[in-house]
């Protein structure tokens, strides 16, 4: 009888401790892996043309989380890796992916026509929104988001490359810029940050 009582008390204590531990762990604030913009600032608005030829305005995406990336379709390294990361993030966040917009903005408007962007993004995920526009509008967007880009002539080849910033910007559902991710941040870490941002907003 005594042994049974001890066992019951022991088991109850163990369950109680597990519950308290789980509550403590789950109540801990998420530690962001991206660079946190504190306080978040309103993301500067823009209107560009997507791969279907329709206008896309950032402010119209309020209510969803927008992941912004600046690159170009002839990019040999950073852009394909980042666009592949978009896929991994989408996979990681599962059902909440419909609350996220993945946006690719060109840094090479001379070659990146809507058709070219559509064909390129089809290799990754056609749901990614690919944007281009006239040089003046793009210059403004690049400046507003601190995007560095410069054309580099390849003397051996007829083509040129474009050196460009590689960071990702996370605009929350509130339309504010909350996070930036440096190139090389693990997709899993970015997915966890995206989910935390969606929970907070």
């Amino acid at each position, binding site marked *: 009888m005594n042994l049974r009582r001890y066992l019951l008390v022991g088991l109850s204590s163990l369950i109680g401790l597990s519950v308290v531990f789980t509550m403590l762990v789950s109540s801990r604030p998420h530690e962001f892996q991206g660079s946190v913009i504190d*306080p978040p600032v309103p993301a500067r608005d823009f209107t560009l043309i997507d791969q279907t030829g329709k206008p896309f305005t950032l402010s119209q995406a309020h209510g969803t989380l927008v992941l912004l990336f600046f690159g170009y379709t002839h990019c040999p390294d950073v852009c394909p890796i980042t666009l592949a990361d978009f896929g991994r993030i989408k996979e990681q966040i599962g059902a909440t992916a419909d609350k996220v917009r993945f946006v690719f903005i060109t840094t090479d408007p001379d070659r990146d026509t809507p058709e070219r962007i559509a064909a390129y993004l089809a290799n990754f995920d056609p749901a990614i929104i690919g944007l281009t526009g006239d040089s003046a509008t793009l210059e403004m967007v690049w400046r507003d988001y601190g995007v560095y880009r410069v054309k580099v002539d390849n003397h051996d080849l007829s083509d040129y490359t474009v050196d460009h910033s*590689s960071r990702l910007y996370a605009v929350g559902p509130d339309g504010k810029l909350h996070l930036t991710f440096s190139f090389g941040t693990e997709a899993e870490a970015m997915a966890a940050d995206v989910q935390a941002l969606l929970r907070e907003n």
Partner: protein
Amino acid sequence: MHQNLVFRLAARRLFILFIISIAIVWGVSEVAFLLQKEAYDRPPKVIELVIPGGTADRIAAGQPVPAIPEEMVFVVGDTLVIHNADRIDHELGPLWVPTGTSASLNLDQASKMAYSCTFQTSRYLDLDVRQPTTWQTRVTAIALAAPATTMFIFVYSLVIRPIQPKNKPAGESVSLAK
């Protein structure tokens, strides 16, 4: 029999030299550790950097920004938080710091980087991220250096004092135990 004795004498010398080597290496390692301790032997922490108002104007005028160092030393695990009190947005490598906000950079890998930087007249800021010296580092250093030091001293000792077993009368056993 003679060969066996030489081998045993060599092994004994090697063992004694190994102990001496550990002592030497440990001593040198501790001295080096004490000398460098202040620089980067500390637990990770948050390091804040403020971009003061007027930075962009000073840079445009080609003047230095005295509040900002040209090189910063960190240990792995540090977090660099940059506060932008200037009137324009600033960048440091992967970081973008809109005006009036702060942004953070987790330094989780030892490396030496020269980041492009909009709040330095030179347009670059060197970040040196070092591995902190822990007791594991010190033990590893001793474990790596002691065998090499032992061999070095052993070879040197063979030159200075070759192994020569004393000749004993026939039938008498050679005792190595002291």
